[in-house]
């Protein structure tokens, strides 16, 4: 049942070095392994040959922390829709396949090493306004703010974003509109988000532009790769909110 695979993996010593693809063989891979476990096997092998293993990010390995960030065969997070790389399993591949693995590539995400890039621009966008300003201790009882299930669900669908950056990696303009839209949408559907509604959208969009993310030209690639299947509805909402804020 086990497979042998040919890998072409992007190696880059650091942000200044020039990167290149390097070929590796992954041997005796079980279909039950996750994609990252397959890379673990390759890395163990590299260590045993006294070579430096491939650097990539992961933590939760269950599709929720947003750390893993691999472009697999040209697709952010690989071929399964609604799935992070850590939840992609090797049964999706066949014995003898060649698999290409690259980092997120975008101007705003500078390379760090191999498959690891710097996504701190996302944090800075959130710092610009992706929150409700409420100090600890001052909140009223939770049930004094009823929220219709419809709005709660819409807010939740947007709040599911894990901040992985696949949307940016997939977009030919490296736009972060899905990411920013998700936060703006979550908070605009909730009463708690109303007081800061206008300044939030303006500040976040300004920061997004400043960080070097591109503009959206509606190719919808972001939605196609989003592991949480966040809909481009949030981009429509973001645009609407932005216009509304200018009025």
């Amino acid at each position: 049942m086990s497979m042998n695979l040919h890998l072409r993996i992007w190696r880059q010593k650091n942000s200044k070095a020039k990167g290149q693809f390097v070929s590796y063989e992954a041997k005796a891979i079980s279909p039950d392994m996750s994609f990252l476990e397959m890379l673990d096997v390759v890395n163990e092998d590299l260590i045993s040959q006294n070579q430096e293993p491939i650097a990539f990010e992961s933590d939760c390995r269950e599709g929720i922390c947003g750390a893993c960030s691999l472009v697999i065969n040209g697709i952010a997070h690989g071929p399964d829709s609604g799935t992070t790389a850590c939840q992609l399993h090797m049964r999706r591949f066949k014995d003898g396949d060649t698999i290409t693995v690259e980092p997120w590539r975008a101007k705003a995400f500078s390379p760090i090493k191999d498959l690891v890039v710097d996504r701190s621009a996302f944090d800075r966008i959130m710092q610009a306004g992706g929150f409700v300003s409420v100090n600890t201790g001052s909140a009223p009882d939770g049930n004094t703010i009823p929220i219709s299930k419809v709005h709660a669900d819409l807010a939740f669908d947007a709040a599911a974003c894990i901040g992985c950056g696949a949307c940016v990696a997939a977009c030919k303009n490296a736009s972060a509109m899905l990411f920013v839209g998700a936060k703006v949408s979550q908070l605009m559907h909730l009463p708690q988000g109303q007081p800061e509604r206008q300044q939030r959208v303006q500040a976040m969009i300004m920061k997004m532009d400043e960080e070097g993310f591109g503009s959206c030209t509606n190719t919808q690639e972001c939605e196609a790769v989003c592991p949480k299947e966040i809909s481009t509805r949030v981009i429509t909402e973001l645009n609407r909110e932005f216009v509304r804020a200018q009025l």
Partner: protein
Amino acid sequence: MFLDAKIPSGPLADKWNHYKDASKPINPANKRKYHIIVVGTGLAGASAAASLGELGFRVSTFCFQDSPRRAHSIAAQGGINAAKNYRNDGDSVHRLFYDTIKGGDFRAREANVYRLAQLSVNIIDQCVAQGVPFAREYGGLLDNRSFGGSLVSRTFYARGQTGQQLLLGAYGALNRQIAAGTVKSHPRTEMQDLIMVDGHAKGIIVRNLVTGEMTAHTGDAVVLATGGYGPVFYLSTNAIGCNVTATYRAFKQGALFANPCYTQIHPTCIPQSGDHQSKLTLMSESLRNDGRVWVPKQKSDKRAAHQIPEEERDYYLERKYPSYGNLAPRDIASRAAKQVCDEGRGIGPGGRGVFLDFSDAIKRLGKDVISARYSNLFHMYQKITDEDPFELPMRIYPASHYTMGGLWVDYELMSTIPGLFVLGEANFSDHGANRLGASALMQGLADGYFVLPNTISGYLNQIKPNSIKDTDAKCKQTAIDAADDVHRLMSIQGKRSPDFFHRELGKIMWNDCGMARTEKGLQNALSQIPALREEFWKDVRVTGSDLEMNPVLEKALRVADFLEFAELLCHDALQRRESCGGHFREEYQTQDGEAKRNDEDFCYVAAWEYKGSKQKPELHKEPLQFENIALAQRSYQ
């Protein structure tokens, strides 16, 4: 050593208010003078840092991930408890307090747990105000569900992503303070040591995970919110970066480590599928609301689940614990699963699994209802196993999940090192020998939002701010010592990867110090661990250089600490000659195989003191007093 828990006087229900009334706040203009170091930005660390920033303190946060939003807390699925009694089903602060003390098998401090239950209601309010999208009913009000170890419905949730939504709420509050300039965030840094000056915690040494540089960061107090040590078993439901380094290094600097042997093995995880496995995935306990746990009555029954007729199935939790049934607490459910598998009635590969079956619930409620409740969990299960839980029952097996033990703290959450505070899973407080579901999120946020901001002034009032600089000799020396550890590891140039040693350690711990422990097994572990550690220091191979991003080095540093810490855990398990909660000693069980506590001799917190690398740690005891709840044998029957 006398361990003063500093429990305020007065009736249980008034202690926290009395404490706050008696405390002396710091003048707002002076708060700015204090710099507080917060290590960890999970629920506990992020909520603490944000709240301290709001109060006007200067705060620096540290985490090893690339962003505070990725802390392990993000993975919590099921929910968070609060004694709101929105359901009118008889819940109250007292009931939550009682359930938590009983769930912890009477090994937690009453005063701490009562405060936790009181604060639980404020947490929900705070999170709702931040825009956390909790599940709602059609009328627009907050929804609840039930969790193990409780007969009332008090668990608030956000689909199967409660931890994510709560963490993003705290991350938002933190971001607001970063933007306001009160908090400075240092992601991709790993704490390597604690800086001690005249017996007080005054800062930390961190390794920059991108450049490899070791730097000192000093402050007037240090807060550790660095999570649990579940991966001491190698495989666990924790994120793979979870580690014991920060708390263990603090232990070596003099902080006592309490109850390390209280580890929680969660009953509902996806069974291991092979040796390649890097982690085990939890299937939230909330599934036990609708799923029924069973195994075949017959041994080595190889038939598919649907071929086994009803009368040949053993719904063993419902049989043994008729009143709690499938919602029996975790330690009990885990041991019961182990027991049926030991009897040869386990299912799936290697006979290490039991069924969690939704077919009755699907018949009763329809596929849509079940799907609305658990779709993301079902989806995750199918991704991993390639089996559809709507068609086949899930296969589950226990796995290391949570660690109740941690650094000893008093009522103010201060460790035995003055100026060192410990929050969240990293401390030992509140859960005793077993944690109930949906109580970790509650504790982390109670510690961070409400407890620490009210207790830290007590310490700060006694010291002079800014007494040390990052460039002082003491800081330099601690940084040099930490760098020496790194160089020592790099220079071994052995043959085996750090992961190899971690896996070996995991095997020892799971076999000899896992769900069932014996004197003999623990002695065995205590002889094997030092041998493995010695081999590690002779034969580990760390590739690359230390002055760059180096995941192998990061792993080696963590494994080195696990290899020492594991021994402490086993010493603790050995001295506790009783069974309680997650700590089950086979020698001490009732006739029906339940944990048999020994309140006469073991009703204490075991707090260990580091005595040097070749010495056995020294045990100190904090006796536990139960004034409001009568000590009783836990029964869920």
